[in-house]
């Protein structure tokens, strides 16, 4: 009984006629999407540059050996450790990337709800409501496309 009351109240609490709360949804959604999007990009950058980092570490390792800071077997151990960390740097993109994707989608859903609420708010003028509906549709389209198709990407270079 408690559960059904909770689910109804969740829907009822959506800010269909509350411009201030809808704006709050929009800002928080934007913030969440930006934070998780940034995490996604950082994670991708770490993975992309893992080999460069590995080359740097291997050069440092060889120089440390040549300076006599440690022996051959420590040098080999360091090589293996560097290789392991490189693999982790590449693999973390899978874990962090998937979590970040969920975060971005949650943020976008918040933004979409905010725009839908603007569109349904009869206190706003017709033009604003129409633009809000279009924006909600665009966000929904992006969420759907990125959720169901993984091979679609926009490359800006």
């Amino acid at each position, binding site marked *: 009984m408690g559960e059904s009351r909770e689910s109804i109240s*969740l829907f009822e609490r959506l800010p269909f006629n509350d411009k201030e709360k809808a704006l709050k949804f929009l800002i928080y959604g934007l913030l969440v999407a930006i934070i998780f999007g940034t995490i996604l990009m950082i994670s991708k950058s770490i993975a992309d540059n893992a080999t460069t980092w590995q080359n740097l570490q291997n050069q440092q390792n*060889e120089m440390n050996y*040549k300076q006599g800071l440690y*022996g*051959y*077997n*420590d*040098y*080999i151990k360091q090589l293996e450790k560097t290789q392991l960390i490189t693999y982790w740097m590449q693999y973390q993109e899978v874990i962090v990337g998937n979590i970040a994707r969920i975060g971005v989608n949650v943020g976008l859903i918040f933004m979409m709800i905010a725009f839908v609420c603007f569109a349904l708010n009869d206190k706003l003028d017709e033009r604003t409501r129409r633009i809000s509906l279009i924006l909600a549709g665009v966000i929904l389209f992006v969420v759907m496309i990125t959720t169901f198709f993984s091979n679609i990407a926009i490359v800006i270079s």
Partner: protein
Amino acid sequence: MARWDSILKKKFAYIIIGTAVISLILGPILGAVLNKIIIYERKPQVIQEDSTLGINKAFSFFVELEKNQKLIVEISEYYINCTVTIKILSNSIFQSASLANSTPGSVSGMEFVYSQFGWGTSPAGGTVGASALTLPTTVRYAYIEFMGSRNGDALISWPGEYVVIVYGTNSGGPGDINVYFDITIKIDGPGDTLSDIFMILGVFLLLFYFIAAIVIILKKNFFR
């Protein structure tokens, strides 16, 4: 919920983030400091010429190695007229040789590798395997690594009890019986393990706090 809200309080945030940052800083420092532990160092170490006649007069140092633990001996011979030989024996062989006071030259040493550092050589090219090393005849300075056995230049871990022995001669006059050499004995410390633990702790705390904070903020603002 109220209990979870306390995570966002300033004091709690300082404690969590502070601990995480301290862990991330301490990890590499402890890793570097405790990577190798010096268990014996003497410059110069003195033995007598009769160390070549009986193992009981030779320099000996007992070491116990655990699985994957490495023994490192840095030995150098720069002193006038002195020649020394270093071997690493298993404790059982050393004990039986000690009971009979065998000559150290007649006891077979275990396999180790030593490195000769230089900018012109590759790491593999500068490493040599041996079971005994005479200084300064072969090298004046040696960085010896030992784990029990070896395959080529790579060490194989045989945990157990070992004894480092050094014996030598002085080719000076009849009165010059002292044999000098420099020696440092080190073993692998807990540095690597501690570094990994602190780094993982630091990253975990930061991730935990970040995720918890986002969930609480969202819950507080939209799902209540």
